[in-house]
């Protein structure tokens, strides 16, 4: 276990060190202390390593993550795991806005709540939230799965493409072209597996599924009001 104290080490040095690790490195377990809300901690990782951060992180923690496992023992600022490609990011506390923004693969787990725009523009990643998500979550969500064990704020899934949304609690309002859909056995299967991988206990049958009504896919003047 390699420990790095961010009160002693610059973010730049930490990131460069992590980037320079060879694919077959044996320096696989990293423990970061004193993050104190600093930004861009552990961004652009690309390797089979685990990075555990004790404390609250600022913006873009684990941004564009590939392969690595990043655990935040605290809260995360805006854009955690933004554009993640693969691997696993877990936030034990809450996450701020734009969690998993444009994320393309891998699994992002937030055990607490997120604020607005969770999964905005997501492009294939899986996001599982133990608590609730704020407004405009899954805005323009293109691909992937968003699972919310709590409630969702207003305009959920506004302008959604093909991403799948599963919400157990209440939905304040649905966004343009987002509708409730039937929860079929194959969806229960996906949901069960996601909750399992996230290590979050919840009954899949208590969830509802939401997705695109596909009415905005090609412009039709009769749907102009939706814009």
């Amino acid at each position: 276990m390699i420990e790095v104290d961010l009160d002693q080490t610059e973010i730049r040095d930490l990131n460069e060190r992590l980037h320079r690790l060879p694919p077959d490195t044996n320096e696989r377990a990293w423990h970061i202390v004193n993050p104190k809300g600093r930004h861009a901690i552990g961004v652009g990782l690309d390797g089979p390593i685990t990075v555990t951060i004790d404390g609250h992180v600022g913006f873009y923690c684990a941004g564009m993550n590939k392969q690595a496992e990043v655990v935040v023992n605290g809260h995360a600022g805006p854009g955690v795991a933004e554009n993640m490609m693969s691997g696993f990011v877990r936030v034990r506390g809450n996450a701020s806005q734009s969690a998993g923004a444009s994320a393309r693969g891998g699994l992002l787990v937030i055990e607490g709540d997120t604020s607005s725009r969770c999964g905005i523009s997501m492009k294939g990643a899986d996001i599982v939230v133990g608590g609730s998500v704020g407004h405009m979550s899954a805005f323009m969500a293109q691909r992937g799965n968003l699972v919310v064990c709590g409630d969702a704020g207003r305009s959920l899934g506004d302008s959604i493409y093909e991403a799948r949304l599963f919400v157990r609690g209440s939905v304040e309002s649905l966004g343009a072209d987002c509708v409730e859909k039937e929860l079929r056995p194959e969806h229960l299967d996906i949901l069960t597996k996601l909750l399992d991988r996230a290590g979050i206990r919840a009954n899949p049958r208590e969830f509802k599924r939401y997705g695109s009504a596909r009415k905005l896919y090609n412009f039709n003047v009769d749907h102009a009001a939706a814009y």
Partner: protein
Amino acid sequence: MTVDPRLLRTSHSFPPQVIQEIHRAADQGVYEIRGFGAKRKLPTFDDLVLLGASISRYPLEGYRERCDTNVVLGTRFAKKPIELKIPITIAGMSFGALGAHAKEAIGRAATAMGTSSTTGDGGMTQEERLSSKTLVYQVLPSRYGLNPDDLRRADAIEVVVGQGAKPGGGGMLLGQKITERVAGMRDLPVGIDQRSACRHPDWTGPDDLTIKIQELREITDWEKPIYVKVGATRVTYDVALAVKAGADVIVVDGMQGGTAATQDVFIEHAGIPTLPAVRLAVESLKELDMHRKVQLIVSGGIRSGADVAKALALGADAVAIGVATLIALGCNRPVYVEDYHKIGTEPGYCHHCHTGRCPVGVTTQDPELEQRLPPEQGARMLKNYLTTMTLELQTLARACGKSHVLNLEPEDLAALTVEAAAMAQVPLAGTNWIPGKNGY
């Protein structure tokens, strides 16, 4: 009964084109979408002239006496600034808007000329990375195709806040151009009309942009120059804010800038022309003592070496060409005329990039149409055009006595109209008059 033609009066406010547009809107219930840039008349670089050598100023001989054209971009923070042989770069245009052949042709020509090309709102293609020696990678609100590997493979990163054709608007690509390949790169269903965000998903405002730029630098270990691109609107503030946010290079795209598809009202009625935009950008940089320290690339209706010379004289470090690039590749060439007719236009008038039926194979995904633009041939044509522009630039610079094109200055210019004098803050030819200066 024949109509006496003298009785036919055109309305200035409702000319035939406007009448046609209102009829179309009544039929379709939606705004008109098209490609190309602003077509309306507005002040351009044509309204400025260069003051060649005279008795007080001596010219340089062509060929024997050097007139250098190289420029370095990204000297502020990046470990690996970009060195270009000519101050003319290829602007960002997406794979999706353009076909793969066009992107490859652009890459090859840029490489041959020692300059850069830029990806667009669809991500980086392999063809482009392999063919272009210096490739600038755009990070746009949509984030289509964005990934850290391409960030690291790029030579520079361009954070796009907006473009001249539609400042405040997002990308657009209609269903007919969302083929399997394009859809795959953008993570979209095939054949749908792409809706795009106009704001970035994870930052808003220059204070958050500062943090975003830091993140991009961290991911790429501070190697690459970071550009920030804006459409020309509140240029003075935008340039100052981009500097404060940490940009290495600023790209300002005037309203003449092109697009493959957006609303006509956006193209024609938003943004300011490139002419005042250049001057405003340079002034803003000077006020922060950042002129030449943060480099300025200017785009939007650059057409010839004369335009480049004037942009550089006003203080830009380089220019980018978009529409002109496509025209060099064949856009609006009078060939395959029946195919122009099929999409309802004629060569010389075509702005139908959005249809995906480009008769010369440039802005299309159709494999048959793409055959009309073999990459090597396209590369040769574009290289010829870039060479011509460079020679024109050098001709004018030498005539002004400059051994390096970046030594062109505003005092080498005069304006032919009052508007141009005011916009460029260059005296009206034959006078000392700059509107707005010294109480005029």
